[in-house]
């Protein structure tokens, strides 16, 4: 039996419907055999009387669009429909170019994850599992070609067509380098016909995806691998004999001429990626994540074009106050402000497209887009972002993106302006073929009809009015209220007489043939009858009623976008601190009743009775002023800390992944810390390059950096690097003997490498890992070495001496007291804990007198935290050295001020109170070494970043903002569907976990919601 498709309006279109039902295409592929008879079609159509939006800038009224053979023949206001074309009357309708999604994996299967990657306790996978003549790392998949993986998928295509899309760029979303993407249409045709551009783009991300290889295991490792891959690929162009054939690098090079698209998915990742691009002369098109509005200035500075998703956070259910207690202010603010993202990009004049990517439910696309429009995106820009912009970025503007002669016949027929809430997409034409979306409204049947019925008892007639919402009134003397339905062809009418159990229903169904409908029916008594309805007067279409919009009341973006952030970051001031006890950490010692004047971020004067016009005066009477605390060993403010996958990872850099939105920056300011040395962890012998930062709360990642400081690198020895916590270690080294060899080998390789570079030997590959080691040997980079026991300490010193350099700092160094004389002879600094011990085997001989002994032997000694909690009390940790070993109070304070400054080579700028130095100062309520000392004001570069008075206001502001948002969430739930109600429904609030980085060396007391980076990844896994 032939199944008849019930097709919409008009003769011409029902013919098309029939064609569809028969699965016959307007596109024919010559090389394929025909099973049956040839049935060539030219798909010659003219769409007349339409409002045609050619592109976001050009709208034609009462215009005609002519298409043939899948392409646009002409479009304009004064075009007569060709006689040999099927004419579709589009009076009252709108025609738009169909949309383009530049970030899809349509038709390409996502690879499945087998859980792998680096795990501190599990065996490592050192090499790639990919077989063949490919590169060394499983996450660099430049050889993947999206076009070859592509299989048209009608179910998915339909979902996208139904929301207006006609063309997508598809690629396999896996790996750091992901190979090429292909442009395909969403037509239901053979892949051969829908594939518009085989290699349209090259794709990258900062996520290793399903690779099971251990390396890279961190954000900074990902960035290092990306950088090294650029270098390797450039080197590979010289056909180095040693490499043989490397299909991955070959593909990498081949792909460079394409648009380069990188998935960043987060505002900071955008900056990280853009910096890699800048280094290698690549301007990425960046796939955003949705939080970029929080740093829109920095986004604009990248000069990148963006692809923006329209997924918004699920609203938090606020019914349970004990659950909402653990919901973060930042999460709630992001819920409120996420829909402003696209508008923020427009306002900042940044080029962008919109994508359906990341939507949990693609059907939410229009609702979310309208929300973006409500929250500041213009309709013009929205349309451009879905048509012309992606077409231009992908180099397919000659094929699609606007309605112009010669381009693909990819267009939408809608009931009205595309972004209006009540507008219906009737049809989506792709490559000249119609796909119905929601066609039943094509003909508006509302109006007044004369209904005549031939019943057994004679003729009856009603005046029938069909109204909105399927309501019909039947007037024949009395007025009866009934219902009707119309699906584009079939109609049903009914009304009820009487009430209650005795009510009877008259039902009718029939077929609409233009203005005359014929059908059969049955009355309440069961009698059958036939009927005819004739249109008397069509209803006058009402304009889309515009809902009066409440002006949006939105919170402000703060810097950082976190509790304790402010709309304006703190600014440098002229500050005069009067009459304090000033601990200079200089030979002047402790000065009672002294003033310190700060101008232009520097210490300007120290003395008595100072005055300065316009200065902010702080009364220091009864209080103590010290230099800002310097923490030589910290792991805050970074997106990742350990690249533990290999024993030598000197190529990774903490600076590549700073996170200026770590609340611990603020918490540590409240403990007087002003400078922190952010170290790589201790998972491997040669760890990563470190970054010295100043705690400039509210700044960007770049703002945190301590400008002009010497570069350092973290090394580690002992239990962690030999992976003592793992019962299944397979990574060399497994003993302290092996650790020494890793050091020797790395420096020997670096030495040979340097010699080869100097000799300009051909074919030498630049190696980021060895570059860093060469810098060390040339005293341009300095080592902070995690170390505990005397054997390993001595061994490391001797390796350094063998290669002609000295180790700058031994950190932890809990057995330093045993070899203090050797350390002194070597000329190394010591950075240690005050009183830690017995938490692991290598610290059973740790003693709290360590710092005092090392000091007395003549070493420069610092007390560090290595712990986000203890860093807030470093002044008191230094105070313990008075108790344990009897150093003077002034000497003890130096262990957290000038001594670490010296070992970090910044003692000319910070670490003491001296005229000309940076104004990094702390005003304490009490003797700074006392348990009762509380930091009242913390100043960095003459900027008051922490002020206990201001802090009180911020606490109140946090509570007020939380209350406002909770009320708003509650209101949104009470009135679902109203403005502000989320598309994604309500979810029970997820606790605001705090990722706290640590070197995985010891225990921490970080609070209930602290989690590790690995745990956060699991948490975010969909």
């Amino acid at each position: 039996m032939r199944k008849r498709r019930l097709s919409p309006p008009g003769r011409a279109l029902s013919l098309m419907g029939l064609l569809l039902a028969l699965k016959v295409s307007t596109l024919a592929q010559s090389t394929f055999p025909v099973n049956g008879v040839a049935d060539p079609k030219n798909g010659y159509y003219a769409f007349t009387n339409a409002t045609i939006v050619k592109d976001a800038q050009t709208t034609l009224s009462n215009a005609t669009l002519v298409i043939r053979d899948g392409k646009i023949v002409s479009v304009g206001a004064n075009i007569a429909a060709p006689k040999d074309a099927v004419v579709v009357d589009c009076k009252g309708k709108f025609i738009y170019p169909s949309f383009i999604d530049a970030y899809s994996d349509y038709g390409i299967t996502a690879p499945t994850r087998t859980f792998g990657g680096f795990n501190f306790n599990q065996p490592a996978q050192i090499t790639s599992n990919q077989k063949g003549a490919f590169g060394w790392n499983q996450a660099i998949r430049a050889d993947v070609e999206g076009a070859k993986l592509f299989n048209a998928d009608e179910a998915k295509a339909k979902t996208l067509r139904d929301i207006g899309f006609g063309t997508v760029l598809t690629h396999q979303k896996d790996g750091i380098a992901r190979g090429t993407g292909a442009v395909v249409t969403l037509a239901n045709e053979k892949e051969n016909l829908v594939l518009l551009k085989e290699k349209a783009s090259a794709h990258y991300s900062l996520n290793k995806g399903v690779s099971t290889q251990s390396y890279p295991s961190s954000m900074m490792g990902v960035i290092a691998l990306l950088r090294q891959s650029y270098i390797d690929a450039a080197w590979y162009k010289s056909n180095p004999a040693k490499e043989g054939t490397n299909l991955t690098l070959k593909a990498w090079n081949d792909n460079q001429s394409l648009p380069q698209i990188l998935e960043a998915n987060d505002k900071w990742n955008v900056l990280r990626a853009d910096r890699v691009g800048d280094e290698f002369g690549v301007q990425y098109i960046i796939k955003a994540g949705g939080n970029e509005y929080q740093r829109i200035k920095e986004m604009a500075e990248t000069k990148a074009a963006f692809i923006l998703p329209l997924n918004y956070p699920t609203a938090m259910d606020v019914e349970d106050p004990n659950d909402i207690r653990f919901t973060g202010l930042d999460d709630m603010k992001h819920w409120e402000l996420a829909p402003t993202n696209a508008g923020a990009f427009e306002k900042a004049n940044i080029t962008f497209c919109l994508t359906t990517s990341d939507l949990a439910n693609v059907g939410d696309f229009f609702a979310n887009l309208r929300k973006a429009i409500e929250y500041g995106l213009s309709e013009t820009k929205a349309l451009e972002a879905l048509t012309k912009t992606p077409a231009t970025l992908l180099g397919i503007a000659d094929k699609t993106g606007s309605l112009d002669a010669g381009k693909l016949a990819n267009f939408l027929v809608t009931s009205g302006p595309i972004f209006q809430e009540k507008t219906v997409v009737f049809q989506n034409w792709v490559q000249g073929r119609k796909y119905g979306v929601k066609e039943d409204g094509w003909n508006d049947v509302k109006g007044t009809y004369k209904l005549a019925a031939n019943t057994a008892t004679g003729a009856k007639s009603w005046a029938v009015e069909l109204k909105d919402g399927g309501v019909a009134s039947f007037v024949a003397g009395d007025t009866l209220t009934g219902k009707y339905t119309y699906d584009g062809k079939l109609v049903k009418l009914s009304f009820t007489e009487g009430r209650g159990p005795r009510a009877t229903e008259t039902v009718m169904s029939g077929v609409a043939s233009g203005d005359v409908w014929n059908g059969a029916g049955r009355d309440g008594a069961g009698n059958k009858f036939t009927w005819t309805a004739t249109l008397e007067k069509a209803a006058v279409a009402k304009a889309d009623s515009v809902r009066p919009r409440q002006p949006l009341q939105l919170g402000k973006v703060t810097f950082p976008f976190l509790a304790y952030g402010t709309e304006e970051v703190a600014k440098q001031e002229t500050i005069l601190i009067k009459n304090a006890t000033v601990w200079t950490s200089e030979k002047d010692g402790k000065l009672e009743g002294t003033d310190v004047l700060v101008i232009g971020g520097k210490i300007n004067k120290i003395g008595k009775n100072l005055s300065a016009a316009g200065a902010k005066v702080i009364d220091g009477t009864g209080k103590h002023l010290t230099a800002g605390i310097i923490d030589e060993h910290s792991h805050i403010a970074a997106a990742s800390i350990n690249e533990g996958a290999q024993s030598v990872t000197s190529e990774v850099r903490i600076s590549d992944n700073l996170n200026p939105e770590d609340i611990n920056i603020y918490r540590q300011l409240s403990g007087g810390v002003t400078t922190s040395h952010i170290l790589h962890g201790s998972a491997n012998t040669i760890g990563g390059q470190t970054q010295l930062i100043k705690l400039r709360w509210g700044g960007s990642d770049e703002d945190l950096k301590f400008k002009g400081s010497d570069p350092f690198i973290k090394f580690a020895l002992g239990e962690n690097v030999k992976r003592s916590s793992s019962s299944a270690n397979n990574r060399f080294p497994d003993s302290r003997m092996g650790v020494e060899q890793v050091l020797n080998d790395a420096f020997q390789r670096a030495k040979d490498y340097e010699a080869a570079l100097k000799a300009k030997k051909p074919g030498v590959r630049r190696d980021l890992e060895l570059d860093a080691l060469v810098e060390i040997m040339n005293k341009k980079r300095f080592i902070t070495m995690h170390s505990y026991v005397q054997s390993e300490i001595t061994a490391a010193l001797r390796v350094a001496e063998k290669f002609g350099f000295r180790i700058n700092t031994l950190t932890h160094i809990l057995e330093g007291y045993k070899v203090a004389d050797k350390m002194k002879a070597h000329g190394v600094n010591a950075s240690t804990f005050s009183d830690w011990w017995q938490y692991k085997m290598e610290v059973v001989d740790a003693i709290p007198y360590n710092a005092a002994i090392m000091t007395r032997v003549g070493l420069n000694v610092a007390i560090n935290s290595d712990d986000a909690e203890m860093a807030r009390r470093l002044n008191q940790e230094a105070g313990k050295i008075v108790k344990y070993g009897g150093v003077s109070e002034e000497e003890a304070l130096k262990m957290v001020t000038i001594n670490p400054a010296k070992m970090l080579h910044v003692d000319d700028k910070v670490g003491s109170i001296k005229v000309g130095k940076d104004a990094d100062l702390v005003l304490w309520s009490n003797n700074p070494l006392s348990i009762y000392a509380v930091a009242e004001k913390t100043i960095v570069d003459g900027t008051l970043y922490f002020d206990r008075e201001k802090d009180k206001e911020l606490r109140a502001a946090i509570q007020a903002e939380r209350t406002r948002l909770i009320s708003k969430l509650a209101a949104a739930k009470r009135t679902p569907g109203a403005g502000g109600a989320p598309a994604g429904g309500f979810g029970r609030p997820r606790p605001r976990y705090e990722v706290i980085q640590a070197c995985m060396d010891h225990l921490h007391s970080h609070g209930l919601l602290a989690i590790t980076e690995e745990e956060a990844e699991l948490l975010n896994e969909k």
Partner: protein
Amino acid sequence: MKRIFFTILLGSWVVTNVSAQETVYPASAQNETIALTNATVHVGNGQVIENGMVVFSKGKITEVKPTAAVSGAKVVDCKGKHIYPGLILSQSNVGLVEVGSVRATVDENELGELNPNIRSLVAYNTDSKVTNTLRNNGILLANIVPGGGVLSGSSSVVQLDAWNWEDAAYLPDNAIQFRMPSLMLRGGGRGGFGRFGAQQPAGDPIKRALDQIESVKVFFREAKAYYEEASHEETNTKYEAVKGLFTKKQKLFVHCNIVKEMLVAIDFAREFGFDVVIVGGSESFQIADLLKQNNIAVILEQMHSLPTMVDDDVDQPYKTPAALQKAGVLFAINDDDGNTRQRNLAFNAGTAAAYGLSKEEALAAVSLNAAKILGVGDKTGSIEAGKDANILVCDGDLLDMRSNLILNAFIQGREINLTDKHKQLYERYKYKYGLK
């Protein structure tokens, strides 16, 4: 720095300079009445006696008052010094865990979920190298707590100068330790997380936790029935182990932190009439009045912690004690730090004093309050006549690292040796480098 080890040494033991910890002997019984005079006496209950005197004999305190003439006692002039009650760790694994990362040295957790019959005391190692470092910072007693499972077993209070655990026992089996399953909402694709991606069981973790909690209730209901039974055909070791809860000889220590969990703890108190103590209690400031109303005591397990939430007041954990004090909740401050091995108890209390407690209230939180909560308040925790002579003589303010220098310490009147492994290694390397 002043380094005055003053010479009262009571004949039982003489400080020899460098001796291995193995020759640091537990002190023998007090055989001579001692009067410490002219000191600032911090009683532990809030009271301070300037120019005070403490007299103790046969291990018990006999007199505490302003310095006066005393006969028949060895008088020690403590002018300028401060006298404190010995500090108490309310929650400790000392003696159960020697080196946390070395499995063979860890006797803290047992297999299984309901192990009320497990007793920490029998595994307590008096020769742990950690013990003497605690004494040096003023800690003379500790509650040794088993971990693992849901009902982990019973803790015991020990004194820190003993040859073996039987000598050390101060109050055996004082509390049953209940580690409440977490009622914190978890998210994420794997239904929560464990370290390094351990797969969690499917389903709602809160519901699972509540089911587990219910199973503990069922256990106690059955234990109660067993307790009421006159004689038993078969002995149930687990029910036997919790009889003390019904007789109030034992308390129920409930390890939990968030409000919902603490409300469940109150529910246990209401249903069973147990003496309930919350251990952890980082969110206790939120419901301090309810805790007071229900007579629930709190041990703040680790006060030197980061705030729970990013949004929280940056000093929240530091000022939580002040909130409890204000509401009248009986609470103790603990130091559970695994890196310093708990030696900073006094400074945790000091921090609380910097953030709202008075110094004497802070002291009570690590002495008398702790003693009351652990069930030894009648024997120790303060310097009052009739109590054990668990006494510290300190160079200055005990709670501040600037002046925390223990000059003498007495446990049950016995002056203990304050040498520890650290002092010994210090001496060894001062010798190596020729330092004085």
